[in-house]
């Protein structure tokens, strides 16, 4: 879009990452398995996807029980709504103040563990014998 918007057509240049390609290490078996979609490669990717999905689902369960159960709790036990902390009714504190650090904490844990899953996967691919 931007290419035409400026009036004159922009000349395209081909960028070749020659050095990066040259420095690429010799293909190892696991990497080839991935790239060529062999059954072994498929199983490796499936394992990674499953691990990441399980992590995401576990953490959403934390949010569902931590935050999602609140409306039900307020409905079943109205006394919770009357309870006060520092002169403020508990639901106001829970929703207006504490929910945000809670969400951030869950997000932080996810980023940590998801990156660890990926490191494990990379380790298997690059050092199949280890």
């Amino acid at each position, binding site marked *: *879009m931007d290419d035409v918007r400026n009036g004159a057509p922009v000349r395209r240049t081909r960028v070749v990452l020659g050095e990066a390609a040259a420095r690429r290490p010799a293909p190892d078996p696991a990497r080839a398995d*991935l790239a060529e979609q062999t059954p072994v490669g498929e199983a490796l990717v499936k394992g990674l996807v499953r691990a990441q999905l399980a992590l995401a689902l576990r953490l959403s369960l934390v949010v569902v029980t931590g935050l999602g159960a609140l*409306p039900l709790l307020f409905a079943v036990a109205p006394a919770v709504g009357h309870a006060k902390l520092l002169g403020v009714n508990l639901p106001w504190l829970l929703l207006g*103040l504490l929910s945000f650090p809670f*969400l*951030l904490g869950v997000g932080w844990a996810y*980023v940590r563990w998801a990156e660890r899953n990926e490191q494990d996967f990379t380790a298997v691919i690059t050092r199949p014998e280890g």
Partner: protein
Amino acid sequence: MNPYVVPGLILVVLVTVGIGAYGLRFARTTSDFLVASRSVSPTWNAAAISGEYLSAASFLGVAGLILRYGVDVLWYPVGFAAGYLALLLFVAAPLRRSGAFTLPDFCQVRLRSPVLRRLATVFVVFIGCLYLVPQLQGAGLTFTTVTGGRYEWGALLVGLVVTANVALGGMRAITFVQAFQYWLKLTALAVPVIFLALQWQSDGRPAVTPPAGPVFSATTTVTFAEAATLTLPDGSQSRVAEGEERTFAAGAAVPEVSSVDDRRGADWLLPGGDTTLFATYSLILATFLGTMGLPHVLVRFYTNPDGASARRTTLVVLGLVGLFYLLPTLYGVLGRVYTPQLLMTGRTDAVVLLLPEAALGGGHLGQFLGALVTAGALAAFLSTSSGLLTSVAGVVFTDILHADRGGSVRDFRLATVLAAIVPMALSVYVADMDVSRVVGLAFAVAASSFCPLLVLGIWWRGLTDVGAVAGILAGGGAAMVAVLITVLGPPLSGWPAQLIGQPAAWTVPLAFVVMVTGSLVSKRRVPRDVGATMLRLHAPESLRL
């Protein structure tokens, strides 16, 4: 009129244009722009995403809803923030790795189906237009509150300014401009709130919910836009005619007005009230799952260099957005004390704009802080509506006007104007709906169409184009019809009102079920290269496969 407002607004526009021009010196072509964006750190990128996301609905609407309905609507800010957690858990890194720039692109990458791509285009345009409406509403409301002019003029004026800007390429979605808008919006709410809290202290901490109902903190004159019945706490009633003015002394009780729906006492303070569990859960589903389907949110993820940094960016966004949402609640609560007349006029969305002067008086401090929040509001609807209009116009340009057959600048301008006309007309028509309510409807449509498509597309190999089309048509179509009935149809009551007014609780599960069933039935249509696609979506870039 407040003498600081006009200089404040001009300053915001000048600084915005200035930063934009400064950024343009470094970004002349598309590729320059992308390369420049990719050297941007996750913190800057996250501030830009937050700047584009925090719209008039967040800046004005959330505080207005809290002033009016109390604790039950705190789910709006919680959900607006939690949407980014859902985005982080299920979408952020794989979406960046897919290389898709828009939702129609993702359909192409994952399922290679032109039909699905066209359907996704329709939904992007619908959601984008629906999301633009409350931005223009906010603009109209600000215009009325600050200048006393007509609502329609404000909405149309800002609509025209944004359209011209996008069409002429005047304000591009440059990272630094959007990041600046985030910090401006945060400052515009955070600085006044410090003074408001101090004032509340020095007034002897007046009760937010006095036992006898809200009272006027100062002598107030209220003008009634329509005829209504006023009911005082002691049960006495009186009638007012359209356009009538009444003056209430300081300390007088605030009467209930028959034409305005608001909550008093325990209904406001405690959860439950008139809101059913169904409506609450519907709202939670819509906001938690809808964020990932908003057109202007996804485009920004492309500017991350790789999947891991997309994740980190989303985490920072979650922090920045959460920080911002601590503030509107305080405005809504203090509004009960200092601007209770809004409960009588129903213009509760104006509370953020009126509160500084109402609480701190018409002196220089009150006027200055009043101008600051007005400038923040301008930043809110300028940044969000420019971002939205750019992404909707981009989709109209590539997928509807078929720009691949030689699109021109004129076609892009035509697309922009086309994308702007409908929301501008609608914003005049739905003038009296709460800003955040309309936004909630846009989230419901996004959650019932794109959320299942993205989540299943990223995590489930078995998804087929037939299943995806069926799921979007069933869930998203149902939500779309519900929105059209809510906005254009007659008022409903009872269960139909619940099901139609907050549709997400049934349309989201419907979309998921139909999408999975449809895919299982058409198993033979699973793309043959699904293994390669999955590898691309989930494998870390460091492997360089």
